[in-house]
């Protein structure tokens, strides 16, 4: 007979083993869907984003967020409704309702630093006079596990017991941009992860909006702000070198500088190295969002029209697609759901932060139709991608579309300043390597690439709605297009700039007669393939 002491010892041993087991799996538990409540902290980072204004506090918190969220979702930031991404509160509410997130607000920066002290080894001081030193400090923050601070935040950090890890004040005063990032390359490249690069561009001058920095810091990414224009010789050479060191289909997050270069130069250069562009520099909370996983067995279900027994009428068919509509556009604004409407999906989120897509998919009305974008698995220009990588790019996009229940795909290529059209071989590549797509749409502004193959249409936008055009002028434009394209049916694909909402589009369409018929994008593409009154056209031959 065993003694009570022996039984007790055995029970203690088993308890200890169980406790060890729980500790071992606890980190892994955050990587999988959890039905347990996720307790997080939330802070407000609204402000003016000025380097000598609110940015020091905002940047500090964003850098802290990156460190804190490395191994679990712990800190979420609210950016307010005046920020370019208007959905930070709505997403948090969604996480609370659907993903068992419970939160408490932290009111001050010192409170946040005290709460998350164990994730912060110290601080990095940037030089507010030299913008590149702020960008570089994000790289240092990720590598050194520090937060970024302005000089007048040093007393606060010292008082809280944090030590200085690096001081960039005065260090780069006699250096130009290229020299600064060469210095950063020499000191930090081998210590950074190379999983992605972060182009900390966007607004220049007095403001910076480094929303995406938390993810870059969490991933120990290399940050830069280098021009992608060939005319900026030294910067272009350096950034090309950086891109050449990335594996094909690696990510470039952030966004190009509005002062130094252009979107098309950035994406063209990126595409030359088969790199995936995902914007913007303002993209918030990704270090948090990617921890929120889908419930087991979750399947994405998009709206699809019944395409059987369609009959083509002698109408002007109109279909709308909103640019950048989910995160920064009109999704949360008036009118959505009242007419069939297309929304562009950033498909990379399927792997990076699927709960964001879940949020949109579950909010979608039967009139909200999703389309895969843009050119590849991310934003890529097919004409600039090296030919050996193009099939892979399209296949990767095709796989994502299957995962997201999408059957339409959009391409936009601005690598050629003279045209937005695509040559036949590129169009044929999409037909070939995306066999499950029912159709394609090309362009941002209007374009002239049209084809039909095996019952699938490849169309271009016939109209782009800019924000400055009056309702009356737009109506005049559409009536003119109807005159210029007299055959019926006429298929008019309409691209809507992100800041115009559905209600405004509806107000425009009210002025057009019954000859104009609004249809969903899948029905539009199917009808176009059934009766292709458009002319087969490809990029002009040179």
């Amino acid at each position, binding site marked *: 007979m065993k003694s009570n002491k022996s039984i007790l010892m055995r029970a203690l041993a088993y308890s200890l083993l169980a406790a060890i087991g729980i500790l071992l799996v606890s980190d892994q538990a955050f990587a999988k869907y959890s039905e347990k409540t996720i307790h997080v902290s939330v802070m407000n980072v609204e402000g003016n984003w000025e380097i000598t204004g609110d940015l020091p506090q905002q940047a500090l918190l964003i850098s802290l967020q990156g460190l804190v969220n490395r191994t679990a979702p712990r800190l979420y930031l609210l950016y307010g409704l005046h920020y370019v991404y208007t959905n930070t509160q709505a997403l948090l509410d969604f996480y609370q309702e659907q993903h068992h997130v419970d939160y408490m607000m932290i009111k001050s920066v010192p409170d946040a630093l005290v709460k998350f002290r164990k994730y912060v080894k110290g601080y990095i001081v940037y030089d507010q006079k030299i913008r590149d030193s702020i960008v570089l400090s994000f790289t240092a923050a990720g590598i050194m596990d520090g937060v970024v601070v302005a000089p007048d935040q040093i007393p606060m950090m010292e008082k809280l017991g944090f030590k200085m890890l690096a001081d960039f004040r005065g260090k780069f005063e006699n250096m130009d941009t290229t020299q600064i990032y060469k210095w950063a390359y020499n000191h930090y490249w081998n210590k950074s992860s190379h999983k992605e690069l972060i182009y900390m561009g966007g607004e220049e001058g007095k403001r910076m909006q480094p929303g995406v920095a938390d993810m870059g810091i969490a991933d120990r990414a290399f940050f830069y702000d280098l021009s992608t224009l060939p005319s900026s010789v030294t910067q272009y050479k350096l950034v090309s070198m950086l891109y050449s060191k990335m594996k094909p289909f690696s990510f470039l997050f952030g966004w190009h500088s509005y002062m130094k270069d*252009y*979107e*098309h130069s950035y994406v063209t250069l990126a595409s030359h190295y088969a790199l995936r562009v995902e914007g913007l520099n303002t993209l918030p909370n990704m270090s948090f969002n990617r921890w929120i996983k889908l419930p087991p067995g979750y399947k994405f279900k998009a709206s699809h029209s019944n395409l059987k027994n369609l009959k083509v009428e002698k109408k002007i068919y109109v279909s709308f697609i909103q*640019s950048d509509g989910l995160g920064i556009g009109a999704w949360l604004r008036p009118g959505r759901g009242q007419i069939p409407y297309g929304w562009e999906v950033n498909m990379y989120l399927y792997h990076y932060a699927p709960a964001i897509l879940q949020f949109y998919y579950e909010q979608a009305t039967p009139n909200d139709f999703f389309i895969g974008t843009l050119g590849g698995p991310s934003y890529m220009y097919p004409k600039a991608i090296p030919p050996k990588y193009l099939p892979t790019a399209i296949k990767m996009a095709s796989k994502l579309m299957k995962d997201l229940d999408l059957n339409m795909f959009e391409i936009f290529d601005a690598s050629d*300043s*003279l*045209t*937005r059209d695509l040559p036949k071989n590129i169009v044929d590549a999409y037909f070939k390597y995306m066999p499950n797509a029912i159709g394609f749409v090309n362009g*941002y*502004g*209007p*374009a*002239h690439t*049209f084809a039909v193959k095996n019952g699938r249409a490849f169309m*271009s*936008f*016939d*109209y*782009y*709605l*800019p924000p*400055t*055009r009056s309702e009356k*002028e737009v109506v*005049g*434009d559409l*009536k*003119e*297009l109807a*005159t*210029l*394209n*007299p*055959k019926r049916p*006429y*298929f008019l694909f309409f691209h809507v700039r992100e800041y115009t909402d559905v209600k405004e589009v509806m107000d425009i369409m009210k002025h057009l007669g019954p000859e104009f018929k609004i249809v969903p994008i899948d029905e539009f593409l199917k009808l176009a393939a059934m009766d292709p*009154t*458009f*002319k087969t*056209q490809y990029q*002009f*031959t040179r």
Partner: protein
Amino acid sequence: MKREVFHNWTIMVIFLITASIPGLSKAQSFVGTWNFDKSQSKNVGAFFESGEMRYQMKIIPEGNGKMVIEDLTSTEAGWRKSKLNVDLNAPETTSIHPRGNLASFSFEAVAIGPNQTIKTKAVQGSDKFAFDLTSYFTVLVSQGTYNIVLYSHYKLSPDGKTLTVTETRNSRKYDKQAVYVFHKAD
């Protein structure tokens, strides 16, 4: 995303002809450099209305009724130039326009194809400070092509410093005229 910047070739042709109209003094001449004034222009299309586009014309006489009109529009790469040759002694002028979208059609899918020929006819106005131009060209649209007829009336101010061009086209008769206002740069 940034907008593209396109040509509007039609404006150019006008000045050539007017520059050689007898009776006009040098001060009243159309010859020279003209800067587009967005604030005074109306119904000119989204590109011209945007603050991003810069538009300038130069009219260069070549004697014997011949002139060259240079159309300069700003692009992200700098100024972009196209040239139009006009012969006042011929009943009709033929030019080749660079391919691309047309700014006067704003964001409609309307483009000039490669090696597009434009024919123009000039008619003296009721006074020596004005004339009319009719242009014929074919544009590319999604259904193929469409023949455009562009009617333009050019009016020089008495002091010779302002040129006003009003336009209508056959594809958009129901709308108000487009009014382009230019000021002499030199």
